[in-house]
């Protein structure tokens, strides 16, 4: 798999240089969105989104409900294609290769996703984490065992579940279930992890645990998180994007967005004047 990735990267070497030249702040973006429009039927939900997602950084998207931040997140692993009657224009480059030219299962293996509501499968804790490996053709017990333990450790869940891996995942608490979903996503070693308001249904302590683990796994993956919670974005993110009515109003380093935004809309939102 590694060689095929290299080949893909080589064959697209020219576009890499091109995008790198255009973007001064990020020489090698992990993901690059170019003039992305998205439609639900005739309703345009995203208007010309162009931005870079930096490798091994945490990027947060904030904005009021219905502003398109989740929709944008779901275009990055082509999850929106599962919704009927939708259309996407523009391109999203993963390591400079358009994800719409790749096999969709391959895109989703490289760009993992964690959802707003935890969605453990009706299987054991172990089988939940092993699922992604098995569907991608890995069946060797030693490999799966090691990957499950590693993923659960990354998700800060190992100590809590190591003695009950065969128990059904539904027996876990809400916060544990969400960390299980993170472990499940990490098991296939995604290069990017998309999180869609992962803490919105959790209490502050469970939220804190997830934020801590996200900090830890920055080293192994690139993180993109959508959040309603501005403090969370301020605490976690290296870069923050502010969405409003389907447009990316401002995208910059998190400190700049919260302390010295250049747009009036951003300032109004982050200071709590609306939204």
């Amino acid at each position, binding site marked *: 798999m590694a060689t095929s990735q290299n080949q893909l990267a080589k064959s697209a070497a020219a576009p890499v240089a091109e995008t790198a030249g255009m973007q001064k702040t990020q020489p090698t973006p992990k993901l690059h969105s170019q003039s992305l429009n998205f439609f639900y039927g005739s309703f345009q939900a995203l208007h010309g989104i162009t931005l870079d997602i930096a490798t091994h950084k945490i990027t947060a998207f904030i904005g009021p409900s219905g502003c398109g931040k989740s929709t944008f997140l779901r275009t990055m692993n082509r*999850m929106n294609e599962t919704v009927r009657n939708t259309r996407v224009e523009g391109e999203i480059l993963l390591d400079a290769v358009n994800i719409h030219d790749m096999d969709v*299962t391959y895109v989703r*293996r490289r760009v993992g*996703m964690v*959802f707003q509501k935890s969605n453990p*499968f009706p299987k054991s804790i172990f089988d939940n984490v092993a699922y992604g490996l098995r*569907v991608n053709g890995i069946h060797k017990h030693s490999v799966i065992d090691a990957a499950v333990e590693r993923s659960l450790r990354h998700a800060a869940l190992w100590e809590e579940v190591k003695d009950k891996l065969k128990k059904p995942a539904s*027996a876990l608490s809400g916060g544990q279930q969400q960390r299980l979903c993170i472990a499940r996503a990490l098991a296939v070693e995604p290069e990017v992890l998309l999180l869609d308001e992962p803490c919105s249904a959790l209490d502050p302590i469970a939220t804190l645990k997830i934020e801590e683990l996200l900090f830890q796994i920055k080293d192994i993956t690139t993180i993109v998180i959508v959040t309603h919670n501005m403090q969370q974005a301020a605490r976690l993110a290296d870069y923050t994007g502010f969405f409003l009515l389907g447009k990316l109003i401002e995208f910059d380093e998190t400190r700049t967005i919260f302390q010295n935004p250049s747009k009036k809309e951003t300032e109004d939102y982050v200071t709590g004047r609306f939204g």
Partner: protein
Amino acid sequence: MDLRVSSTRNITNAVMLSLSGVCTILVISVLFFILGYLLFHGISALNWNFFTQLPKPSGETGGGMANAIVGSGKILLLATCIGVPIGFLAGVYLAEYSGKVFAFTIRYVVDLLNGVPSIVIGIVAYALVVRPMKHYSALAGGVALGIMMIPIAVRTTEEFLRAVPNSLREGGVALGATRAKTIFTIVVPAAISGLVSGMMLNLARVAGETAPLLFTALGNMFWSRGWLQPIATLPVMIYNDAIAPEEDLHRQAWAAGFVLLFLVLAINVTARMIIARGPAGSRR
């Protein structure tokens, strides 16, 4: 406010209440009358020979229906092997893949098929299997009951799969699983208790069918070997014995009726227990 108005309303209320109460009692008593009558005649006619011996030739007393019990089992097995896979996969398609208009059409057709009289299904099986093979067979009976199982199998599958939350499907494909893989390794297992019990109720429903078996499986006084010979079944045996002149055969028919009812009841109760319990973690 006129007081007399409200007293008429009270009277209407009382009359309607007692009327519906009486009708409810009527419904229950019909059911208990049938059950009691069958129990009374059935148990007295039932003995060990009924389960172990072949039917005696006309004129002799005694004997049993061992061949019909096994025959019913074989035909129901065949029907399940034909009706369940077809109905299940069609139901998966309806619930997971098809567009709105197509699904509506198929659903309508399936409901129509469900309403086709069982004797007509029997004729179809006769034309499809008996005529080309030139003899009655267990296979033909199985095909007839299998076709009868398809509509309920489709609708059961569709309904239970639709009840599985969409978040599970998204979770599956987000890990790089294909849609089919997600459906068969996550969605179907999440609905398995409903699916199994639905199929069992479906089986119980066709277990008592007689009309489509009359000219497909036909009947047999002896053991039927394999799948290509005429075969005895409990419902057809009941029919034949009940219209025969001999008193002893009537007793056999009662016993068979009792056994058949007991089997159907057992399948029903098991299915409802599976539904009530469900697999661990499937309901959230």
